[in-house]
């Protein structure tokens, strides 16, 4: 049992905190909310130089060869400054998908370009209903034609579509309830791709993407035909754990903001932080925030080190999704009216929370998974 960070993780934590605090001010985060991409070219180049884009990519493919558990520490820091943007879609979700399902030539062609910052990816999985379930993929299908495939269908909740060079599209390739899903690489510029924005409250770039008679060749089949659900369910676990880490980082930041505020805000000739009614709510926040970090780190560690990791991931996303919302709410309560204003930074975290707690499975989704794993059904 070693609940501390490794030396490398400590260095990553410190260097990323310094870099992000300097380069991702609240002013910048606000600007990125209305930016169609959510990141500047300069920042993306910096990420590449820092080795973050290829953090999880093995060295043989031009990456830094870190493990997901190390990435989770960086995600805490990104959550801390409230950074959204295409990093998550490309450097976690796409990297993991390609690593788990790509063939050698796909890996050696694509991964180095992700690490260098030349390619961005986006996973197109969800459909209109927004459910995480293989059987929900119905409308997007791919059929064999000549030496390749033709894809048709509409995806929803596609993150960072506008900035992606490629979509990784989950399409039905066999008539089966829970299987028969294959993954395809579709260039965004491909004829027949149509992107429509879905407006998310926290500046997350979400879109509907329509694929109409998309013709691609066999080399763009990313996985073993029909067998992609296993890959996807693994990728979704990283997504769930990763969002937990972002929320844990944000929770720590919000706690700090709140403590600072109640120490300085005076009413009745004393700091409001001297009132026990306020103190106990701060204590509640501190408890939950600590647990968010512990649950998130535990799930990250399990993902990197243990074959059986489902339960820990579900526990993490269920706990953190629920508690982080509570933390935001308490923080607003203690900030009083000022925290409710657009100009005050607290609300940025609160709006972003709405995406984070729902992405890759909400509290209810993970709750049900835990129930199954504990044989409660």
């Amino acid at each position: 049992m070693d609940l501390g960070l490794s030396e490398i993780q400590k260095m990553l934590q410190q260097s990323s905190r310094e870099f992000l605090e300097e380069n991702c001010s609240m002013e910048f985060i606000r600007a990125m909310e209305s930016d169609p991409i959510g990141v500047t070219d300069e920042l993306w180049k910096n990420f590449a130089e820092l080795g973050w884009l290829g953090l999880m990519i093995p060295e043989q493919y031009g990456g830094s060869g870190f493990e997901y558990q190390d990435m989770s520490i960086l995600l805490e820091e990104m959550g801390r400054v409230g950074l959204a943007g295409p990093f998550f879609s490309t450097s976690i979700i796409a990297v993991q998908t390609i690593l788990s399902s790509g063939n050698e030539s796909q890996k050696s062609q694509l991964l180095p370009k992700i690490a260098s910052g030349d390619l961005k990816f986006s996973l197109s999985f969800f459909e209109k209903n927004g459910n995480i379930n293989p059987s929900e993929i119905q409308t997007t299908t791919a059929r064999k034609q000549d030496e390749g495939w033709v894809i048709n269908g509409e995806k929803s909740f596609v993150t960072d579509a506008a900035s992606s060079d490629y979509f990784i599209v989950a399409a039905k390739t066999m008539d089966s309830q829970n299987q028969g899903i294959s993954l395809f690489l579709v260039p965004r510029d491909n004829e027949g791709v149509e992107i429509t924005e879905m407006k998310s409250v926290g500046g997350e770039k979400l879109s509907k993407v329509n694929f109409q008679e998309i013709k691609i060749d066999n080399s763009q089949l990313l996985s073993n035909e029909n067998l992609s659900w296993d890959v996807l369910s693994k990728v979704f676990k990283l997504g769930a754990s990763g969002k937990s880490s972002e929320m844990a980082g944000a929770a720590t930041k919000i706690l700090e903001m709140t403590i600072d505020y109640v120490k300085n805000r005076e009413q009745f000739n004393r700091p409001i932080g001297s009132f026990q009614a306020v103190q106990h709510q701060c204590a509640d926040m501190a408890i939950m925030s600590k647990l968010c970090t512990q649950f998130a780190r535990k799930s990250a560690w399990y993902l990197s080190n243990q074959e059986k990791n489902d339960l820990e991931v579900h526990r993490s996303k269920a706990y953190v999704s629920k508690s982080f919302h509570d933390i935001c709410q308490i923080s607003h309560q203690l900030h009083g009216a000022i925290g409710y204003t657009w100009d005050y930074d607290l609300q940025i975290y609160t709006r972003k929370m709405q995406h984070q707690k729902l992405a890759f499975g909400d509290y209810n989704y993970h709750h049900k998974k835990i129930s199954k794993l504990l044989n409660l059904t």
Partner: protein
Amino acid sequence: MRYTFTQEDEKFRQELRNWIRNEIPVNFEKWHGVNEAGDDFEYGLKIRRKLAKKGWLTMAWPKEYGGQGASYMKQVIFNEEMSYHRMPGRDGFGAKMLGPTLMVHGTEEQKKRFLPPIANGEVQWCQGYSEPDSGSDLASLKLKVEDKKDHWLVNGTKVWTSMAHKATWIFFLGRTDPDAPKHKGISFFVANIEDCGIEVQPIINMGSEHYFNQVIFNNVKIPKDSLIGELNRGWYIAATLLDFERSGVEYPSSARRNFEEIIQFVKRNKNSSGEPLIQDPYINKTLVDLDLDIEAARLIAYEVAYLQSEGEVPSIEGSVAKILGTTLTQKIAKIATDFSGLYGQLTDSSAPFDGKYLKQQLHVTAFTIFAGTTEIQKNIIATRGLGLPREDKLTVKK
């Protein structure tokens, strides 16, 4: 990071678990533990002596005092397994509190006299801290101890003294300087209850149990060598940060065992509407939330032990562990009785688990109160942990 125990630790867990399962007189599934404060006191002592022989009772003690200097994680495992298996025999007052205090503050003679019986599992101690007018504000205690040259004269009352009715010895805090500031006039003493004529009166709790007592010192004379450490330094001696695991891991660990037992019950029984409990969505949600609560308390307990093993003094983690662990015991008892329908009110053998969880529900009401209430723990988190100003120390601007 590593969220599993080492192989060596797991080997110890297995050895301990085998021993425990062998020691339990009935099938493990049917074992509900015993009442160490009542009829089963002697049985608890018997197990305690066996633990002593195994070297486990005082495994946390330094080697020079006959312990093993066991790591914090090994202590965590010991407490996890003992709690999970509802085993009696641990010695919170002697081995965990007084022993280490003596090692730091006792004279050579005091150590020779008191440590071996504790290490051998032969003696029951109790702790005299709270008084009728001193609960959360413990430092306001009034029990009067006067220096009468050849003895100390003690007058006053201690209350909520757990196990005093079974103990032969008591360690207690008394006021030795009524004029000094409240923390600076307190001293730490030990006394033999029967030999000194200390009166112990039972207090029966709302679950009809006899755990704690009122302890009355009426012109009690105790020998001069009963003072532990320096005069008037008792508050600080009692607060000595003992270098022992105190993670509170016993709460989530016994909760996990109860949780498993409750699931078995849920699978076999129906709710008040006559539907199988297992198909009731409310019950499903409650149980999964409970699983999260257990894991939360366990994670914090591990964090406390981890910080200690790194040589750090846990700041808010100890308080967090106490709040989460004790709240958890109340939730689990409530859930178990809620699931029992009308039978949830019965104390006889027709109740599920012979009414065990109802008894527990009444019993654990004390858990968020003793050893620093939840409110006091939150004050500690807010003031010591988060650096918020203490209300009682505040100078209000005019």
